[in-house]
């Protein structure tokens, strides 16, 4: 009962903030609503027993990405020009509503049978009790190749960002 109430509150915060991101006139306010959306997603992760992801979301998205976006908005002086729509707004809205109706229709009409015989309860309890241990163990044993590749992706992104920003200074 109480988790349901918390779920509805968190979900409505997330969705309303996400809508405000795209209808807000001021891009600075849109960035603040984006941070509020990320906080709502943190709540949803906690409701899904994903504490590690909730912490990562709080540190990376709310703490880093929102601040970087705010810095980028303040460095570019087009803030006072606002956050206008492009000339494709009706086509874009139409496409988005079609995708929304397809997604909602597929989710509602499919029979999500989650009551089948699942993993043993003791396995589930052990997994969710020591979730950080199992995530770390899997990252360096089974998924070690994607882990190393993602570190190279981050390195390439940092080098690319530095070279792109430096290029204009010369």
């Amino acid at each position: 009962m109480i988790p349901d109430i918390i779920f509805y509150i968190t979900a409505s915060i997330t969705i309303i903030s996400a809508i405000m991101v795209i209808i807000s006139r001021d891009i600075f306010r849109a960035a603040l609503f984006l941070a509020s959306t990320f906080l709502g997603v943190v709540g949803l992760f906690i409701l899904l027993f994903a504490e590690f992801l909730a912490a990562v979301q709080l540190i990376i998205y709310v703490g880093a990405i929102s601040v970087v976006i705010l810095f980028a908005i303040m460095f570019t002086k087009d803030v006072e020009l606002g956050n206008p729509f492009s000339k494709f707004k009706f086509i874009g809205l139409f496409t988005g509503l079609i995708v929304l109706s397809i997604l909602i229709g597929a989710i509602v009409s499919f029979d999500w049978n989650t009551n089948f015989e699942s993993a043993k309860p003791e396995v589930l309890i052990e997994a969710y009790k020591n979730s950080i241990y199992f995530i770390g163990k899997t990252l360096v044993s089974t998924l070690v190749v994607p882990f190393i590749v993602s570190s190279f992706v981050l390195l390439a992104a940092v080098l690319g960002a530095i070279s792109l920003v430096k290029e204009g200074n010369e």
Partner: protein
Amino acid sequence: MNLESFLIISGVMFSIGLIGVLIKSNIIAILMSLELMLNSVNIAAVAASRYVTPLNSQPEFVLWGNLFAVFVITIAAAEIALGLAIVMSLYKRKNRIFIDTISDLKG
């Protein structure tokens, strides 16, 4: 609070992000909508791994959706760093960050 409700939230958030990418003209607003889309995929992955678990699985495979989301977050961080670097570079060259005024690649 079941799998469907989380998937519906994820789908609504994905569509909002898609609409934002398509109808906005400020590049930073487009990047923000892109972040919404990546976040909604994370919610769907984590919810699916929470409610649907394979039979006779080891504890580390129960958390497969969390691992998927970790990689998505990594790629999202790389994407936002590169995207904002491109925005700063464009602003230095053109003094504008609206997509209507950037048409250098137009044939």
